[in-house]
């Protein structure tokens, strides 16, 4: 039985990726025997998938300094719905394989990209953007480490002007960082292989994160005939839009593409543009804000609670707050300094009650999370900026008085 939510998620994702949604798509059985495939076949969409011909735009920094960003596009070939298999856990010490069937049959969405990317960095950036889009849509939480987003990289090399070379498929990539590494390693391996007169096999390789290389995968046989057959228990999936929806159709029985389109939330690219426009921050700032879970919200909350200009606030967010969090491997949600506290501190700075150096000291104290307010810390450490002219003169006089000899030396030259 088809899961409605899966269909909606696929349509949302297809629309977000500028795809054409196929109003009629079909389901097929893909047959092969494996311990984690209890039915002996997987239901997928081989003939007509639910969405085709889309595109995904992503940005990269030209150099490492985040000062120049360039936009690239990768074409989306198709999005298809299919079933997940179970999980195989290989226990080599006891020569056995444990099979967990709990996730067998759960709905998956496969996004197939065209080979428009040229290196690990591009692949990583593209997948990162996809991840953000999926999270924004709610289609998936897309956490790679949890297997919610799985990425297989298909890599090939060729001389400029010549057709694409033989590709290998690289699996077992568990993070975006590893994706970049795996792709770059494989590119290098293939170039070396070809330059030494060898050939590339159309094979499946696994990425070994410990060694940082790809290795041929065991128990993946040669070309398999999957004996595709239409899935007889699932009728063709028909989707409607406002125009094609029959008048007397029960709305709970159908998926309306137009309705889904209307309900699409702001995509990351739109969100970033809005942040730049509203707060006057730089585009690269908006990328960092969106990249970190909860950071945008934190930033906006601080801005709301302080008179300091957003352009200045952003510095504190990205340089001070973020680097501290990174140092201690904390997420924004785990920050001992709340947006309220930070705003409080920035207000003191803005009102010139403390200097910026003092502010940094206060912040260092706040990290300890002892529950003190910025004002309390300022008073404790006597960090207040002295505004009173007379008081300042008194202090200076006291210093000069205490250093008579040095003063005479200075006056004499």
């Amino acid at each position, binding site marked *: 039985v088809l899961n409605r939510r899966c269909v909606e998620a696929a349509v949302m994702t297809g629309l977000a990726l500028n795809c054409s949604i196929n109003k009629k798509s079909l389901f097929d059985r893909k047959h092969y025997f494996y311990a984690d495939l209890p039915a*002996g076949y997987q239901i997928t969409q081989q003939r007509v998938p639910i969405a085709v011909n889309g595109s995904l735009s992503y940005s990269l920094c030209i150099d490492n300094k985040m000062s120049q960003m360039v936009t690239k596009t990768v074409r989306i070939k198709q999005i298809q719905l299919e079933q997940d298999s179970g999980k195989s856990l290989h226990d080599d010490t006891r020569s056995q394989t444990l099979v967990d*069937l709990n996730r067998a049959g759960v709905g998956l969405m496969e996004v197939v990209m065209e080979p428009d990317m040229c290196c690990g960095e591009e692949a990583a950036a593209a997948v990162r953007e996809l991840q953000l889009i999926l999270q924004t849509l709610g289609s998936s939480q897309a956490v790679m480490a949890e297997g919610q987003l799985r990425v297989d990289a298909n890599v090939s090399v060729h001389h400029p002007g010549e057709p694409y070379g033989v590709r290998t498929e690289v699996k077992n990539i568990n993070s975006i960082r590893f994706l970049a590494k795996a792709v770059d390693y494989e590119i290098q391996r293939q170039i070396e292989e070809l330059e030494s007169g060898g050939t590339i096999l159309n094979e499946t390789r696994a990425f070994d994160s410990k060694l940082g290389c790809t290795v041929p995968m065991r128990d993946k046989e040669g070309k398999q005939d999957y004996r595709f057959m239409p899935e007889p228990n699932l009728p063709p999936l028909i989707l409607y839009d406002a125009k094609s929806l029959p008048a007397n159709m029960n709305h709970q029985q159908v998926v309306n593409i137009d309705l889904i389109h209307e309900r699409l939330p702001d995509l990351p690219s739109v969100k970033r543009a809005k942040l730049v426009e509203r707060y006057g921050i730089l585009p690269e700032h908006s990328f960092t804000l969106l990249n970190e879970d909860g950071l945008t919200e934190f930033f906006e909350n601080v801005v709301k609670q302080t008179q300091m200009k957003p352009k200045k606030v952003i510095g504190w967010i990205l340089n001070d707050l973020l680097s501290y969090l990174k140092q201690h491997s904390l997420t924004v949600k785990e920050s001992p300094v709340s947006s309220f506290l930070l705003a409080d501190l920035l207000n003191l700075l803005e009102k010139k009650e403390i200097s910026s150096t003092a502010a940094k000291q206060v912040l260092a104290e706040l990290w300890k999370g002892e529950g003190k307010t910025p004002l309390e810390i300022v008073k404790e450490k006597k960090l207040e900026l002295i505004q009173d002219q007379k008081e300042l003169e008194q202090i200076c006089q006291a210093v000069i008085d205490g250093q008579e000899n040095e003063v005479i030396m200075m006056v004499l030259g």
Partner: protein
Amino acid sequence: AALKRRVRFQVSAALKEGHVTPTELCQRCLSLIKSTKFLNAYITVAEETALKQAEESEKRYRRGHPLGVLDGIPIAVKDNFNTAGIETTCASNMLKGYISPYNATAVQKLLDQGAVLLGKTNLDEFAMGSGSTDGVFGPVRNPWSYSRQYKEKFVPKSHSQDEKSNWVITGGSSGGSAAAVSSFTCFAALGSDTGGSTRNPAAHCGVVGLKPTYGLISRHGLIPLVNSMDVPGILTRCVDDAAVVLGSLAGHDPKDSTTIQDDFKPFELPNVADVSKLSIGIPKVTFKSCQQLWTGTAADLFKNAGAKVIEVSLPHTCYSIVCYHVLCTAEVASNMARFDGLEYGHRSDMNKSTESMYAATRREGFNDVVRGRILSGNYFLLKQNYENYFIKAQKVRRLIANDFVKVFRSGVDILLTPTTLCDAVPYMEFIKEDNRTRSAQDDILTQAANMAGLPAINVPTALSERGLPIGLQFIGRSFQEKQLLTVAKWFEKQVKFPMIQLEEVKRHDHDAFQHQKSASFS
């Protein structure tokens, strides 16, 4: 004893009025099952649970709140429907000892109406066959083999032939269900119909066999043979009973995406029907059927009642056997892939590698027929063959289905054909040909209805020269079961098919007793 011969409506009335209690009824059926054990109609008899269900039913009757007409009625279910807590084997080694954790929707619906499940009936392994002879629990014997009508006509062809070894087959693959209904051990039974598997044994056993329109009754929990053709089938002793059972089974099931969404309204059949406005079509056939004579007689009956009877042409039906062979084996190959010995069912001791375990398990678990179909099916699904076989067969299937559409559009209401080529053959003769040859022969008249998804029903018509039942088949328009059953009921009334006279039951009881006595002496 006379009680059993009554059809269910009358039994329902008897239950309601307290003339008989559900427990008494259940016990009588269970005891009759025991004394007809030689028929081998049942694989599992669920005595304990049946009696419990009967008890519950009795309580409801005493309170004056029975669930409906089916409350307390003993039924049997073909052993390819999942039944919670009761073994489901499909007559195969692969599922011997398998206890399902859930009830098929059709089973659940009957239980929800208070029906009493007596047991699971025998079949051809995984419903592949037309004789109910190829299951691991042995063949089913047609109760008519032991009827006075058959014995009177029986002429041994040689000295070696005697009455005892010359029993005839039930037909298949729902032979157990047909035999159970025919021998009065239950009032209705569930079968399945993919190429004729409900109508064929119904014809041979002299009972009503209904194949509903595809998509009307849920297949959830019916272990699939050919997903695009399977339907649950209903076997009863009269057409009215079939209508009642249909009423409790039909309707959308969210667990089966191939069931239609429309609401189904259960109906009662009129006692008097006017067939004069009907147009009955009789397809031209190129093969000889022993039943041709009866089709002619039936046609006359309709004509005399004022109906229009015309000959119609279904030009592509002659290709349905080969078309069915390709599509059926392809889906079988796919559906059988789940039996790998890992999760449930039989697992071989071979453990050198996963692949060798799969191979050994499947070789040990499946019989020749099943393995043969899997191999054929996989052949047709290979990339290089897919276009030429599978796709082509799909196209031919469309042509066959369109033949029916054309005929019905031209004004014909119901089609009339014999159900089988001949009456039931003796087992010894049947097994001389292999399963595939037999299926190809026996399914020829029934299969096309599965191709087109149309409703069809076997109505017992008369006895053959050998004293065995002959049935005629009516095929109706999609989802027009009411019209189909109305015509069938009218016909049933006209032909007054004789009741089976089973003497063997008493005699066998006596034999068993004798045997026991002599055993204690030695």
